[in-house]
């Protein structure tokens, strides 16, 4: 167990990280992500308020739709990345990272101006279980009357799971199909056990519980950024390749001016994916070296259990950011060859 933003979390369960990772790719994995924070935004100005503090276009959401977005600083850097759920025109739910929940709450509260909006930190009102992988739908379907196949990717519905009220969201952080289920926290244990039982935990093709290490390797293979590693309040959304969640023409939002300027001038560095091309594993914080000069830093580096490669994310100067660029990673004093590649590293076949 490790401390993770104040939560005691397992790095891995007895199956081990590699098996947890592979089982999620091939069958199903269950993740207790109750540590994630939830912030309720209610009121007639809920949408316009959220649209001002986040970078993606909240007005494009319909009821029952979710959106990946970011809370931005005036500099266009990232307070946190998050999901914005539109429950109704006057009710949104923001799902944020665990370690940043308090910071996000302070930030969002401090941004409230004259809008008619009521904010509430409801993190303690929800447990969240993520069931991910190609078998996720058929396992979860046995526990709910909601027609799961009808929920589109990045949409959600309210129903019951195992007879308990829940938000069922077709989202995830693994690169697989799957669902995230939000329910009352006192239901967490029973729900967890029921999903494992229904998913035939213990059988070779059954579901397995997955820890933080597999959550990290799965998201990295899928090319998803991790707050605190790949993005933070020193990296802008454009540098982090998150221009697609920066709707610069949606109207004013915090950081827009800086991002418009940076877009016009062009970014000087960019987050890239890389693959190690010889023996060696790149790790977080190691230096990227080109022509004997340190040009950047690895923000996430790890073995990729499904791809059986050693991969990572790093910030490099824009002139070194094209796929195919040869770089070296300083692995504890040894310079290891690597190559910039396109992300995602892994894309599931649909």
């Amino acid at each position, binding site marked *: 167990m490790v401390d993770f933003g104040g939560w005691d979390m397992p*790095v*891995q369960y007895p199956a*081990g*990280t*590699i*098996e947890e*990772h592979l089982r999620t790719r091939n069958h199903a994995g269950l993740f207790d992500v109750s540590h994630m924070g939830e912030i309720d935004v209610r009121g007639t100005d809920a949408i316009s308020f959220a649209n001002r503090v986040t970078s993606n276009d909240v007005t494009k959401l319909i009821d029952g739709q979710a959106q990946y977005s970011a809370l931005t600083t005036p500099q266009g850097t990232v307070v946190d990345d998050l999901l914005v759920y539109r429950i109704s025109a006057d009710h949104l739910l923001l799902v944020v990272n665990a370690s940043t929940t308090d910071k996000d709450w302070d930030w969002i509260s401090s941004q409230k101006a004259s809008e008619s909006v009521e904010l509430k930190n409801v993190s303690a009102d929800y447990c969240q279980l993520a069931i991910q992988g190609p078998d996720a739908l058929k396992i979860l379907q046995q526990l709910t009357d909601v027609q799961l196949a009808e929920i589109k990717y990045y949409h959600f519905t309210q129903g019951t799971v195992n007879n308990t009220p829940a938000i069922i969201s077709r989202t995830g952080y693994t690169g697989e199909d799957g669902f995230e289920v939000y329910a009352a926290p006192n239901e967490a244990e029973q729900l967890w056990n029921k999903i494992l039982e229904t998913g035939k935990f213990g059988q070779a093709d059954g579901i397995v519980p997955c820890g933080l*290490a597999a959550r*990290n*390797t799965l998201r990295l293979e899928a090319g998803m950024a991790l707050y605190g590693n790949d993005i933070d309040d020193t990296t802008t959304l454009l540098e982090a390749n998150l221009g697609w969640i920066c709707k610069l023409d949606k109207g004013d939002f915090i950081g827009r001016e800086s991002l418009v300027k940076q877009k016009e001038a062009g970014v000087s560095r960019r987050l890239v994916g890389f693959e190690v091309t010889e*023996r*060696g*594993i790149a*790790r977080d914080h190691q230096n990227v070296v080109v022509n004997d000069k340190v040009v950047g830093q690895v923000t996430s580096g*790890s*073995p990729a*259990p499904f791809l059986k490669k050693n991969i990572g994310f790093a910030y490099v100067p824009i002139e070194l950011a094209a796929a195919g660029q040869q770089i070296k990673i300083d692995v*504890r004093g040894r310079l290891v060859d690597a190559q910039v590649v396109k992300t995602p590293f892994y894309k599931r076949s649909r």
Partner: protein
Amino acid sequence: MANVPEDLHYSKDHEWVRVDGDQAIIGITDYAQNSLGDVVYVELPKPAESFAVNESFGSVESVKAVSEVFTPVAGEVVKINESLADEPEKVNSDPYGDGWMIRVRMSNPGEVDSMLTAAEYEDFTKAETE
């Protein structure tokens, strides 16, 4: 409960030593491999390199972490387990057998006497777990 063979010597860094004449075979313990998780990469020295006692001779990497491995006895490397390059998982499946790491010619064979016995090592890991 971790497997701790009687006939080996142990270090507090969780290496084991099997004495073979004036040579020592070195690996990591069952307790160590179990705490590391799936081993995906093992970096070993080259034959003929020499190490002082308690010097880092390589590293063992799991998906999540890198751990250095140390020489419990000083000496010159005479052989390394080359098969670990392609099958690092042997460190998990057979830590005291096929998962061995290096064989050294000891410069001071008396050093093993200051290492832990199996019983002492078992007590040591118990204390570490509690």
